Structures are given as C-alpha cells and as structure tokens.
C-alpha cells in the first residue's frame, strides 16, 4: 500500500522540519510517501469564511489530482500532516461525498479542466496511518535509541480531531501518547492536550495569542515536561518562536523545546539530527537530552 503526501505551504516553509522528519520516519518504516504532483493551497480555514464554494473548489482540485496520480487504485490515501490541511481536505472530501447539488457544480468545474473526480480519495493524518495501518508493534521494532527518561507533553491542538474525530477521542486523545510511549518516552498527564495555542491570533491580536501559548508552555513546565510534542506546524511555530517575547512580557523565563512528534520518532529510530530537521529548532533539545 502506498500513500500520497500532501505537504501544504507550511511544511515547505516554517514547518520544514515536520516534512523532513515525517518523510524520514515513513522511509524508515518502509512506507514511502510520494508527493502529490502540482498540489495547490488547501485554502486553510480562512478562505472558507470568504467564499465557501470557491474554497471547496480550490481544495477539491487536490483530491482530483490525487485520483489522477493513482488511476488504478480503488482507494487513494492522501496523508496530510498539517492540522489545517488535514481538516480542510477532510471536510472537502466529506462535502463532495454528500449529494447536495454543489458537489456536482464542483465536479463539473474539475471535469472542465480535465480533472474528473470519482470520490476515491481518503484524507488521512499521519498519526492515524502510523497507529492503525502500520501498527505499534512494527514501529517498536525500529526503535534503536529509546527516548529513555524523556518526559513529553503530547499536544494535539484544536483542529486535528475537531470537529472530525476520525481516529481518536477529541476530549482525551491518546494516539500521540501511545507512539511516544512506544518510543520509550514518558508521557506527562496534562489536561491541556487540545487547548488553543492562539493560532492566527498571534499574528493579529498578539497579546491574546501569546497569553494562550504561554499558558500551555507554563503548565507543561509545571508538570515537569522536558519537551512538548506537536502535530501541527502553526502550534509548533506559536509555541516555540515567541518564547523570548513571552519571557519579557510576563517577566518569567520561558524555555521549553517544542518539536514535532515525528522528530521524536526519528530520534528513537536513530536518524541523524539533520535528517529530522532538528538543527532548525530555536529552543534546542540538547540540554534536555543531556540531562537524561
């Protein structure tokens, strides 16, 4: 079984470490991800609010491209690691499956540009594929350097499981916890797993956005976490890149490494720092590791 990979804009820019580590992890597990040819912007959550039909049409083009790239597969699995891409593409796939008239309009538009869409695409999150397709047992077999003693706060963010809880419990998600434990890491108990990181507010109403991120970082620190693991490029960016400003603003030194769960997996698999994009971190992970 092969998977198509939809990077989206973040994984090619601010979240490039996510791309590098995801591709490396799947390579290690002998489940290569093949990038979707000619993919375009998913529209993110913003475009939906501006013009719904055009937003769906924009995202739909990616689904049609996926079918075109795998013409013989009865089901085409598209892996979207970015939480926003995952949400928008999943929502679009559901929208096209519902026979509400609008779907025909979009399908006709796609057909007119030579991209007929039959509805064979499934949008998957990498956590779902890792746990449910590949399985913990197989993953464990690849662990070479267990994350022994590393205390991890697994942070899922708001979009990955809401409103579509396709593969985990939206109130108390477990999938990332299970993976981290399989890597030999220790998952801390904290109730903020799905609490908002501030999302785009950090760019618009900065004081609100920063405060929300600060709450998460502080609580993880209070509960003894060495590192926060995320599965969303915006969460990672918000939590990691503004720690200096938070320290100033709240007169409280904030210093918490924030990594992608896939980077932790890659470390346990024995991949190099560079293969996993770890050298790109602003808050380095080494001190936490050195203390173990």
């Amino acid at each position, binding site marked *: 079984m092969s998977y198509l990979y939809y990077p989206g804009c973040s994984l090619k820019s601010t979240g490039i470490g996510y791309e590098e580590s995801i591709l490396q992890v799947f390579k290690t597990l002998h489940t290569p991800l093949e990038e979707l040819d000619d993919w375009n912007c998913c529209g993110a959550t913003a475009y939906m609010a501006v013009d719904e039909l055009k937003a769906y049409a924009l995202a739909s083009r990616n689904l049609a491209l996926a079918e075109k790239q795998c013409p013989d597969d009865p089901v085409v699995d598209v892996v979207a690691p970015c939480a926003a891409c995952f949400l928008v593409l999943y929502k679009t796939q559901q929208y096209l499956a519902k026979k509400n008239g609008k779907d025909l309009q979009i399908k006709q538009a796609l057909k007119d540009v030579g991209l007929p869409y039959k509805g064979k695409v499934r949008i998957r999150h990498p956590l779902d594929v890792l746990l449910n397709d590949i399985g913990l047992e197989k993953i464990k077999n690849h662990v070479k350097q267990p994350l022994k003693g590393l205390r991890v706060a697994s942070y899922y963010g708001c979009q990955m499981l809401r409103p579509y809880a396709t593969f985990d419990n939206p*109130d*108390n998600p477990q999938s990332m916890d299970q993976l981290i434990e399989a890597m030999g890491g220790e998952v801390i108990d*904290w*109730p903020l797993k799905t609490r908002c990181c501030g999302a785009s507010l950090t760019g618009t109403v900065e004081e609100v956005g920063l405060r929300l991120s600060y709450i998460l970082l502080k609580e993880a620190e209070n509960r003894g976490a060495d590192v926060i693991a995320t599965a969303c490029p915006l969460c990672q960016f918000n939590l990691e890149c503004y720690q200096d400003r938070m320290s100033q603003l709240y007169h409280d030194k904030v210093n918490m490494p924030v990594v992608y769960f896939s980077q932790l997996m890659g470390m346990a698999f024995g991949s190099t720092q560079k293969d996993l994009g770890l050298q790109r971190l602003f808050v380095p992970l080494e001190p936490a590791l050195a203390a173990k």
Partner: protein
Amino acid sequence: MIAFDYNTATPRIGVYICHCGINIAGKVKVDEVAAFAKTLPHVVKSCDYKFMCSDPGQELIQQDIRELGLNRVVVASCSPLLHEPTFRKACADAGLNPFFFQMANIREHVSWVTPDKEAGTEKAKALVAAAVERVQHNRPLEKKQVPVNANAMVVGGGIAGIHAALTLANSGKHVYLVEREPTIGGHMAMFDKTFPTLDCAACILTPKMSDVKNHPNITLWSYSEVEQVEGYAGNFKVKVKRKPRYINEESCVGCLECVDACVFKTPRFDNEFDLGLKKRKPVYMPFPQATPTVVTVDPKTCLQLSKGKCAQKCAEVCPKDCFDFTQTETYEDVDVGAIILATGFQVFDGKRIPKYGYGKYENVYSSLEVERLVNASGPTQGELVLKNGEKPKSVAIIHCVGSRDHKTNKYCSRVCCMYSLKLAHLIKERTEAEIYNFYIDMRTPGKGYEEFYDRLLEEGVHFIRGRVAEVSDWAMTPEEKGKLIIRAEDTLIGMPRRIPVDMVVLSVGLEAHKDADEVRRKFNISCSHEGWFHERHPKLAPVSTATDGIFLAGACQGPKDIPDTVAQAGAAAAEAMAMIDKGVVELEPNTAYIDEELCCGCRTCVGMCPYSAIKADEALGIAVLNEALCKGCGTCVAACPSGAAQQNMFTDQQIFEELVGVLNYV
C-alpha cells in the same frame, strides 16, 4: 348477523377515505382518491370524511351496510394498529362479519412520509386499489375466546415492581415477583432522602419491602431471572431461573454469624449495593434491611466455590445449618395471565465523558455514589468527606451528564435537576460547603418541585447557567493548587469562568439497562433506539405494550421520578387486573390450516413449526395442525412446497390479489 354466501354473492364494497383532519388531507387529495375508488369494480359506495373513527364516521359505515347492503368495507385512514379494532367493531355492530373489513394505511405509509401531494395522492390510490382487490377474497372468521389465568408476574423488584405486586396481591391475585439482585428495593433503597419532601427513602420503602415478603399472595423470587416466556395474553408460560445462593433460603434468618466467621477477616470485595464504596465479604447481605433477609454467597470470591478449598468457618457456625455449596441453578415453571415489566434503569457511566475526569480524579463522584455517601447506613455513616477524610469546603454539581447531549443521550433524564437540588441541600446541611450547580436549564415541573428550587436559592446554593467544558487539576494560581478546576461558560453574564472546588458531583442521567434489548425480545415487545420499552400509545395506552397481556411500570419505559413511577405501577396493576377479571381473552383468528387435498405428506412443516403444532398423520399421510397450539407465525406457510399450508387472514390468494390491485393501478 347478515347472512350471505360469500362464495357466490356479488361483492358490494364501500370505500371510505379519511381526512384525519389535515393529517391525511394535507398531503393526499382525498376527494380525488374517493372518486377514483368509485371506478373500481364492485365498489357500490365511495366517499371521503373528516374523521372516520368518530361516532358519525362509524355510523356512516353502519348506515351503508344496512341501507345499501354492503358486504365488504374498506377504510383508508391510519395504521391498523390504531383503528382496525374500531372499524371491525363498527362492522360487527351493523351485523357484518368483522373480517370482511380491510384497512388501507394512507397516513403512516403515505401522508406522514410523502412531502409531495401529487405523489401522495397516487400512492393512496394504489393502496386503496389493493385493499379493494383483497377485501373481495376475505373470509368470515370467528375470534376464539380462551379463559385467563388469574395469576400475575411482576419482573423487577424496585419501587415500581413492589407497588405493582402489592396492588395486585391486595386485590386477591397471586403474584410472582422476580428480582435479579439478591434483594428487592432497587435504586430507591440506595437513596437517603427523596425530593421534594425530604422524607427518608428507607422509612417509606422498607415497610413495603417487608409487606412483599409477608404477603400471602406474593411469591418472591429474588436472585432470579426470567429465562423464557411462551404463550399469549391470559396464558403465559414463564420459566424462571433461580441462581444458587449456596444458602437454604427458607431456613436462613439473616443472623449474620456466618459473615463474622468468614475466613476473610476484613471485608475486601466491592459491595455492589454501595457501588464499591464499601467492601463486603464473599458471604454477605447487601444492606441491613435487605429483603429477603438472607445472606448470599458470591461464587466469584468465595474460596470454597472458586478454589474448592476453604475451612468453611461460615457453615460451621451457622446455627440453622443453611449452607449448601453443592447448590446449582434451579428452574421454576409457572402459568400467569398477565406480566408487568418493571425492570428499571441503569445510571450513565461518567467515564464516557473523559473531560469531566470521572475515574481519573478521586474526588469526582457520580450522583448515585453521593447518594450512598450521604446515607446514614452508607459507607461513611452519612458523613460527606473527601478521599483524604476532610469535609469539602466547596462542591460543584454538574447537571445533564449523559443527558441532553448529542454525543451521548439526547433526551432529558427528568430527575436530575430535582435530585441535584436534593443533594445540594443534603451536602450543605452536612458540610456547610459552598455549592455550585452548573445547569443548562432548571427543569422543576411537579408538585412542590419549583418551591423546593426556591428554597435552595434561599439557602444560598449557587446556580451557574452553562454547560461545564472540563474538570481538571490545572491550577493557574496558588489558590487553585490542589483543587479541581471547573471551567464553564456562565451564559447569564456571557463570560467564561474558572471555579476551583474540592469535590465534583456528576449528575448522571438515566439509561436503559444494557441488556434491555435482550429482555424485550424475551417478552416480545419493542423498544426505542435508546432501549426504553415502548408503550402501546404515548397518551392513551401508557402502560400497555403492543403485546397483549404485557404491561410496563416505572423507568424501564423512560426516565421517571418516584411519584410518577408509583402512579404508573398502580395503573399497570389496574390494567392487568381488568384483563384478569374479565376472565377471557379473544385471540386473532390468524392461525394456519392445512388443505388436505393439496398436502402431499412431505412433513417439511412438521419440523419447521416452532410450537410443535403440526403432526404427521401416518394413516392419512398428511400433516395435521392443532389450532390451539398454532401462534400464526406463518413459518409452515412459507415452507410448504405444495401450497397446502395456508394462514387465515393471509392466504396466498389474498396477498396476490392485494398485489394485483397495486400493479393494475401503477
């Protein structure tokens, strides 16, 4: 009775199209359907009328039977479940055999499910055409009358079952009361006080429990379950499984010397009655007023029964020699005329909503657990304390946990607002804690209920309108450290709030028992998708079921408080009595019969019949059917390769003609 030879007499059919107000007329052009029916062969009269089930409607049919000499009647209206008996009776009263009546359902099957009036009218015409074809091939039948067994069975020994059993027993009927647990009393026995009067639950319940035990007309089978139900209204045959107690129930007097002597010196197993908050030994009585007042040995934890090795100190000290470790399940077979189901409910499991922390934080309790904690005979003798033994200074009560929630149960559980108020009062009385009720809407309709709510407001209990988002141990300030933090939107001030408390009570909703579906199959009744047993009619037959002779009482039919439960139990008992005292029941003549000319004696039907109603006659070489045993299931009819097995009211010819009616039209 109008006499005519139905084999040769020309059918004279009357067709009546009911408007049912606008229920039907809103989506079906009734005048057009009536005009269409007039064009069908043998239809002598066809008309539409506002309410066919009304007196003038029925009179219309009867007048036409008398004056126009109708010998077949078709009414197109609602479901036969609702008014077939009405119209059959109208025909019979006018002298026509009631089985020459045929009903077409153009309400549930057409107007209520068809948005388009044109389409609705077309479908109504097709169904009327089918009924007109079929009615010509109906046969005159007679209803059989059979005597009713005067005994009754009540299943479930909570307050509903207890009240129904006592009512029946007081009227002179013998009642078999079957309870699955070792004691009767149900949920009510677990409560400390009852709303809104705050009278002690035990004080009003335990006298009734002992009345049950001592009543000469009641046979109490506790620790027992109904295994199988056969027969029909008036003549049910019930098999009851009696689980082994490993104690001779007749001689045990509940002295509890065996409990003291048990080789387990301290109680260490969860007492189910106290929801595990109190421990028990393998030999135990759930609570001091348990009825019957006998001990039970739990085979899972008793060393003798689970490991086959024990000093058996219990049996040694028993002054009446009650112990018998060789006991096995036994079965009782009884005949009863009526059955009342009063199997109650289970509470919602708080773990299903992880964000409220039940099972994760030790001071998050379910409301039923708190009922035990505030109970004087409960695990803490009525002291409400935290796990560390201290009294809580602040308590949050979260309403609607597992109710009014699209993710769990959509319905309102009806009792939670009131019991939350009661618990708030009891907790405040015992601890003087600040109490915060988080509610969506306060629902307090009932005698004295709103007044009770007022009283709580006066007592200074806080009410915050908003569904709680989460319960966590996430402290943001030093004052919040070590507390449970409630986060909720206060919708009255339009602000999110954080309230730190010591204890959280989840007002869990009521659910149907997890095996409700299995139980309702046993008794051949239906239930809603949530598992609540269906009453025959929500307004006019609230304690009857679609199966004659089976009645409902209490929360097995839907969430209900104690006053409503008792009222319903009384109603169920009265309905059962009315049926029993009538002395006879009429049976639908829908039994099968074997056409001797066609039967080739292949015996296919003999093996298929689930009621052993068919025997092979060796001498004649054909199958012979015993009508008294036949239940009209139709299995033999479907199986018969030669078409010799037929069923009254559902002959092949009748069904084919009905199809012809539809197909001719479309």
